[in-house]
């Protein structure tokens, strides 16, 4: 008995063969309304090894070369059959379609900011109001701060309109200060890395490492 392993959602049917998947299975496409799901029939889902993750990444990269929008699905997602897949995805079609539109023609770059966390901005403290208001304001400020990475401002100025969208997350794991994901037009990864390289002196004392381009894993939150 096989299960359906879900790789990605696509904006259109690729013009070429879908190829083979992580378990050497032939990949196939399942149309669900306007969505196209890339799936493989597997006896068992792939074991979570670095090799399997790498293979799944390769499948997505191959498809991204021939389809405008690829929405990656989290590793290890299986469903009983195509009917169950459709049943699950149909109610979320609007969100998934919006997410596909967002990542269309784009890919993701990942920045990690390293440095002495004691030099990071001090979190704002909520003042005024009653205890309930202060509590809620404190939560809001903490959430806002968790998504702000002012250390990257010099790089942002250089990157300019190269960045379509940004997702940022601060960490409490020194020396890692923050992770920032940027959605950029496909084919601009080299220019992006060049701009980051050129901004290094301005970014000090923070060190920034950049990887990518990747499929747009971090920009599916509306559909996640």
């Amino acid at each position, binding site marked *: 008995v096989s*299960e359906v*392993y*879900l790789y990605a*959602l696509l904006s259109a049917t690729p013009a070429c063969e879908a190829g083979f998947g992580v378990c050497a299975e032939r990949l196939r496409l399942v149309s669900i309304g306007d969505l196209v799901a890339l799936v493989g029939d597997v006896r*068992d*889902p*792939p*074991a*979570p*090894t*670095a090799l399997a*993750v*790498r293979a*799944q*990444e*390769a499948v997505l*990269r*191959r*498809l*991204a*070369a*021939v389809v405008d929008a690829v*929405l*990656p*699905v*989290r*590793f*290890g*997602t*299986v*469903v*009983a059959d195509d009917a*169950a897949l459709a*049943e*699950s*995805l149909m109610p979320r079609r609007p969100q998934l379609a919006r*997410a596909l539109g967002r990542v269309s023609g784009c890919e*993701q770059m*990942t920045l990690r900011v*390293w440095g002495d966390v004691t030099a990071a901005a001090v979190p704002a403290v909520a003042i005024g109001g009653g205890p309930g208001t202060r509590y809620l304001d404190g939560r809001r400020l903490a959430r806002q701060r968790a998504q702000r990475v002012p250390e990257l401002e010099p790089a942002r100025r250089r990157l300019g309109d190269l960045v379509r969208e940004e997702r940022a997350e601060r960490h409490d794991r*020194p*020396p890692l200060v923050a992770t920032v994901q940027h959605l950029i037009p496909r084919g601009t*990864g*080299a220019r992006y*890395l*060049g701009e980051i*390289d050129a901004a*290094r002196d301005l970014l000090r004392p923070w*060190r*920034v*490492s*950049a*990887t*990518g381009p*990747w499929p747009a*894993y*971090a920009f*599916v939150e509306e*559909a*996640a």
Partner: protein
Amino acid sequence: MTPASDAATSPHCLVRAVGRPSLAGAPRGLPGLGPVRVLTAGEGLCLTAAAVPLARYDGARIARHLRDLDWVALHGAADESPFDLVDNPLNHGVVISGELMHGLAGVDLFALRLQAVLCAADGVSARGEP
């Protein structure tokens, strides 16, 4: 590298293939490199390679930059970071729960994530971070 005026050729890997291997989805490589191309090496072997601007990657410049931890971080991990390669598929992407089964036991995922973090920590140590 084989110097040729202002550019050189950087070989990436040797491939044994029945036909000419497809380059669809191939990583773009380090900043400033030309497109990856396939060179026939005979006896069913092909070499993937890219043009390298010597102004950016000549031996003296690389040797000088190897002491610059930020440069190594940027150029050495330009296309593949072990951490991001594993972290992205495991922690991001469309999540479908409830109706769908997830085929992986939590303990396995934890072990894999731990390996990824350790890989990343090794990389950071190599770049001189604590």
